[in-house]
């Protein structure tokens, strides 16, 4: 490739599980980032250069993620990375990326550790502890719950992170009647639910992804239990398949589809036009991340890593999922939208901000 060509293409890496059980998440992230890239390129690119998203499948596996990261750095020569999707793979990649001083902006890795001791690593989403605690506050204050049960996936760091934070926070606001775990492969929750129901909690906190939550909600309905389910951002999109069992339940999210802010509605329209489906929060965060990264590169005026990192630190921008500014760790300071499923639609109930 000639020099001019090189200068006119800036490569940004992206990764997520594009195959396997969680492929829908990885695909959303890659789609979101690619949509942003397309818009930026259409608007003239960065300082005249086009951007290209180089995406690899991580299969949700750390070894694969490390290989994918090494490959995009060495083979493709990416200047920055938008990824990974899950905390586990992001943490594995982070350890190497810190050594490389590679600008990394994860749209969706919510684990607390991701940005610690890593000046080059940022994220566009709020953290698990913050989200869990916010859900607890919401349950106690907005819903007036006195007793809460927690049921989480012990094998999943995201789920565990939320559960721990919720448990701690709610304990100071009311009583946690049950703190129960299950594993990724469990399909039958009736034993635990029967046990939980015996304690008669007001709410049940279910921090997991749609597929599992859907099953749990179905079984809650099957057993005829009346506690109110609350969840986290993993629930985003749950109304598509589980509108009936999720009716009336609440969850925390990064943005609300029903938010009338033009930036939100424009994004939704563009995404639907491009992919024929409504975007979930992961897509929105990835879309935001790609814009944030592109803007930092543009302001840096070069593809030199430290320059990009410095500019990322100065980010101050309105995004689909709220206004983004980074704290010294590289975590965004933003608000959480609490959403209720009503008639199969998202209803923005509250925007809870700060602690």
């Amino acid at each position, binding site marked *: 490739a000639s020099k001019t060509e090189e200068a006119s293409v800036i490569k940004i890496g992206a990764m997520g599980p594009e195959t396997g059980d969680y492929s829908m998440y990885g695909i959303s992230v890659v789609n979101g980032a690619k949509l942003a890239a397309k818009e930026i390129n259409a608007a003239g690119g960065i300082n005249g250069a086009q951007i290209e998203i180089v995406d690899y499948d991580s299969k949700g596996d750390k070894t694969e993620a490390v290989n994918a990261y090494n490959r995009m750095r060495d*083979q493709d020569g990416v200047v920055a990375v938008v990824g990974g999707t899950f905390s586990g793979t992001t943490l594995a990649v982070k350890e190497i990326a810190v050594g490389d001083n590679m600008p990394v902006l994860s749209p969706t890795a919510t684990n607390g550790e991701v940005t610690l001791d890593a000046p080059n690593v940022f994220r566009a989403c709020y953290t698990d502890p913050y989200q869990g605690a916010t859900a607890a506050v919401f349950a106690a204050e907005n819903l007036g719950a006195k007793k809460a049960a927690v049921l989480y996936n012990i094998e999943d760091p995201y789920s565990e992170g939320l559960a721990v934070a919720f448990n701690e926070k709610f304990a100071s606001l009311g009583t946690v009647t049950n703190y129960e775990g299950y*594993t990724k492969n469990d399909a039958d929750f009736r034993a635990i639910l029967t046990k939980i129901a015996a304690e008669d909690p007001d709410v049940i906190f279910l921090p997991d992804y749609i597929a599992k939550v859907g099953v749990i909600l179905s079984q809650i309905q099957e057993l005829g239990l009346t506690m109110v389910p609350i969840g986290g951002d993993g629930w985003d999109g749950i109304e598509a398949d589980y509108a009936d069992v999720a009716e009336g339940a609440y969850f925390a999210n990064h943005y609300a589809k029903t938010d009338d802010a033009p930036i939100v509605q424009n994004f939704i329209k563009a995404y639907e036009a491009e992919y024929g489906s409504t975007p979930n929060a992961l897509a929105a965060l990835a879309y935001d991340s790609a814009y944030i990264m592109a803007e930092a590169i543009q302001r840096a005026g070069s593809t030199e890593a430290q320059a990009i990192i410095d500019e990322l630190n100065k980010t101050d921008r309105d995004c689909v999922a709220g206004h983004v500014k980074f704290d010294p760790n590289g975590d965004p300071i933003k608000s959480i939208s609490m959403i209720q499923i009503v008639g199969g639609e998202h209803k923005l109930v509250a925007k809870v901000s700060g602690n």
Partner: protein
Amino acid sequence: MDKKVIKNYIINIAAIFAVYAVLKGLIYAGVITRYHQGIIVFILINVILATSLNLAVGFLGQLTLGHAGFMAVGAYVSAITAVALNANFNLPKIVVLLISLTLAAIVSALTGVAIGIPALRLRGDYLAIITLGFGEVIRVIINNIKVTGGAQGFTGIPKLSTLDNVFWITVLAVAFLYTLTHSRQGRAILSIREDEIAAEAVGVKTTSFKVMGFAIAAGLAGIGGGLYAHYIAFLDPNTFNFMRSVEILIIVVLGGMGSLTGSIVAAIVLTIMPEALRSFNELRLLLYALILVVMMIFKPSGLFGTEEFSWQGIYDRYKTRKNALHNREKKV
């Protein structure tokens, strides 16, 4: 000492140094990038895992499905040790690595003994199930206790595994397995695979040798796990699930049960394959599975069967072929 044997030893040692030199040369020349180096490290770790599992499955004849469990024990022990050492002493990296790996090997081997003594009383598929169960139990334990960081994972592990030290540790591990299996103890281990009753009837202490073989396999898996921990620097329990055990077993069977060199070749092939198939995107795992099935159908006893690759073997084959040609010429 047999001259031929010594000649073989020298050839093999020279070959190892040659491979090392070529690797270094290619890295220096920039042909092997850090991306490739990363893959090579994973290959080497898989070599340790597969050859050690081969000891249990291929040489001892005990089907185990929980190798990832021992790998996990080693990985966490090594990681925790290294973190503790770094926090309290100011030791050179290589010393920290060696101490951590030694401890990892010991604890994994002891776990192997603890599982092995009761479990090895069972045969065949029952043993497989027990070890499978053990692997799952280890994972649940790691998920539920504090020192391991639970599902959140264990971070801040010092990155002590470099291509150099992983390479030499792998060489030592394989050499160790080779000399072990080619000694009187190795023959005793093989006899158990062949016929346990007959082995006892000629005076082989089958129980001790089974436990020994199993413990060594576990200990080496622990070293493999330790190297993995110090390369990837972040551990979580899901890394060591049942699928990981299966992946290692696949390498062993594909390479040939009872062939260390087979395991090495298969480790190379099967580690590179998913990378090489990257461009197929969503079809890549489908292809991987397909290739696996096809390879098994056409090479049911693995690439190498129970044979070891040897230069002598190649030379002999070359010679017989030449002789055959020669004979044919004579006939005409």
